[in-house]
């Protein structure tokens, strides 16, 4: 199961100081300006990275949106139209027809999603904050969605107070306007805060409440099932965990599917089903993954391949995925919050090499992981790297036959052609 991993403390961001002076993070109630957010994100992208071009475009888009938020009346309409035309590629009806707020909201949420996937969280937050100010009164659902996304970004950076404040706003919007979608989203978010703070009972209560709301959306249900899956696995209740994972996948929500697949694969691996885990990791790797999930999926697939396949096939898979892990380590070398996942990935890669008897690569992977962990002060990863490499297949926990069938069904359902071309 996905283990509870160290979250780098916010102050570790100070390690990044590529610029003469840059925003670090912002104290409560203070809204970052687009330029400050941009500086923060630029500092996390290595110079010359292809992402720079997108980053510049996202910054300009955020500036235009922010300017629209500060303007009024016709000027705001003009800026919003230009934003949609130039940055979201939208065809709009001619003036004076007003812009549909839903189109604007969808466009900003899409751009913010791209920023988030590229780990540009500060700029994404800034764009969403501008969206909240631009949206006209009488659009509580859209406002709630934007606030909810902002809260999720805050939680990703472990700014739990800010996340709680934002989700409480979503909750009160839902209550005031009788909108079950927002009520359920807020319950899910507040549960995630409790889970991150290490309060599983409170978290479970919130997730169950989110599922009980009549009229919640598919992605909220998927999120609640997924979180219950993680909580159950952490509590050692694999049967319940498997069942929640199956329900989360049954919602067919793309955004959650990829994370659920990664966690399910990890669960299968921990339960001693490396072949099924490998297939499920493969299904996840075939999807565009968020950086955290990508790192976990690659390293997990290496371990699963080392346990499930013959030596030649396993070596080929591990070689391909090791290159991917190294590329991600280079690309995200300046992103503090991913360093634990990267150090941990090298620890798993070390295990895979050890299982395959490739001692030189095993030691190199351990050293690389240790270097990352030492540079970013992620002690948990150092402990993991200093422990002996685990080469034995994990024992299978005692499960009911029905649960075993469900586990295997999840693996089989995601048996997709995914092997990298060089392997096949």
């Amino acid at each position: 199961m996905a283990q509870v991993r160290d979250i780098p403390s916010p102050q570790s961001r100070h390690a990044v100081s590529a610029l003469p002076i840059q925003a670090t993070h912002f104290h409560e109630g203070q809204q970052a300006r687009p330029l400050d957010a941009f500086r923060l994100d630029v500092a996390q992208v290595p110079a010359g990275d292809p992402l720079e071009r997108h980053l510049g475009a996202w910054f300009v888009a955020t500036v235009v949106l922010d300017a629209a938020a500060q303007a009024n009346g016709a000027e705001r309409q003009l800026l919003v139209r230009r934003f949609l035309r130039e940055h979201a590629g939208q065809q709009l009806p001619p003036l004076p027809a007003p812009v549909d707020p839903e189109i604007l909201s969808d466009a900003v949420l899409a751009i913010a999603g791209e920023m988030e996937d590229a780990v540009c969280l500060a700029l994404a937050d800034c764009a969403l904050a501008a969206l909240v100010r631009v949206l006209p009164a009488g659009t509580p659902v859209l406002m709630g969605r934007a606030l909810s996304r902002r809260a999720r970004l805050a939680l990703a950076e472990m700014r739990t107070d800010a996340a709680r404040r934002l989700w409480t706003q979503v909750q009160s919007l839902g209550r005031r306007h009788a909108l079950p979608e927002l009520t359920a989203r807020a319950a899910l978010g507040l549960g995630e805060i409790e889970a991150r703070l290490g309060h599983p009972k409170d978290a479970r209560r919130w997730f169950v409440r989110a599922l009980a709301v009549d009229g919640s959306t598919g992605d909220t249900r998927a999120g609640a099932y997924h979180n219950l899956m993680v909580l159950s696995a952490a509590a050692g209740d694999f049967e319940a965990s498997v069942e929640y994972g199956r329900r989360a996948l049954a919602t067919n929500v793309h955004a959650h599917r990829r994370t659920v697949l990664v966690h399910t694969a990890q669960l299968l691996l921990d339960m001693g089903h490396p072949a099924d885990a490998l297939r499920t990791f493969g299904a996840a790797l075939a999807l565009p993954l968020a950086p955290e999930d990508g790192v976990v999926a690659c390293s997990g697939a290496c371990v699963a391949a080392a346990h499930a396949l013959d030596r030649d096939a396993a070596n080929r898979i591990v070689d391909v995925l090791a290159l991917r892990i190294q590329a991600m380590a280079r690309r995200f070398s300046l992103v503090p919050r991913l360093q634990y996942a990267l150090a941990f990935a090298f620890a798993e890669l070390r295990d895979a090499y050890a299982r395959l008897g490739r001692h030189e690569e095993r030691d190199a992977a351990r050293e690389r992981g240790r270097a990352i962990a030492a540079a970013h002060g992620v002690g948990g990863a150092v402990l993991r790297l200093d422990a002996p490499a685990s080469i034995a297949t994990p024992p299978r926990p005692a499960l009911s036959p029905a649960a075993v069938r469900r586990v295997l069904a999840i693996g089989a359902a995601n048996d997709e052609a995914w092997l990298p071309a060089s392997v096949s």
Partner: protein
Amino acid sequence: MSAPDHPSRDADDAPRNAARVVRPRIVALVRAQVTGSTLQNAIAGRMVVEAVTTVRALSQRVRARGRPLRALIVEPVDADGVTAATVLPQLAAARPTLPMIGYCDPWNDESHSVVELVRAGVHEIIFRGIDDAGHALRRAIHSATHMSAAAQVLDGLRPHLTPDGSALVTFCIQQVRGGLTPRQMALGLGVSLRTLHRRCASSGLPLPSALITWVRLLLVVQLLIQSDESIEQIALGLDFPSAVALRNTFKRYTGMRPTEARDNGGLSPLLESFLAQRAGARPPRRR
């Protein structure tokens, strides 16, 4: 062939009493002279905009003596197609206190240039048609000046600080304009107030409240040196209740008045004073 370089408005155009009040200048690298005129109109009566169209002319004009140079505004590329970002680090080294502002067009495909400008060290970015007029432009110049002053203070302090101390001071400098309190500082850094106290002590820094005040005072002196702002404007910009409160705090912490500190060597003596007092120091008591 690039257009000839000349100031958009020369000293001769100034009112007769200009002999007594010398308006500072801004050097602007723009591809079209008309853009220089637009900038001049936006800050008419306060500063003189000297527009140049090539990077080479920009370097010469920045190094030239004359009116005090208050800021630099640069478009990403000059009239000859040379990237401005290539020359900015040299200009920053030649004039470390010079605020630099990037000037981009949001509707042309200049987005990659924004990254280059920011990496080259510009303190602010303004966009054509969005914040290049009137109050917005003046605010951008003001903000760039503050950023530049903050960078100066940080550069002065950094060699004397531990990495953690440097992180704490960076946070203070970055956030001090938003009315920073120790509690907000702890929240922003994701630690409890007690942990913040402990971190300050272990880094050899004063208690958070004293640290915040020291950072504000260091910024005051640097702003007195490199901006046109009066002591009242600086006081209000840094969240002192009034100029009197600023003077009193300054006197209590340093034994000097702000203008005395500026005239007696500027930032360096004040930095020494801070570094001498920092370890375990509590805020001086009011008399």
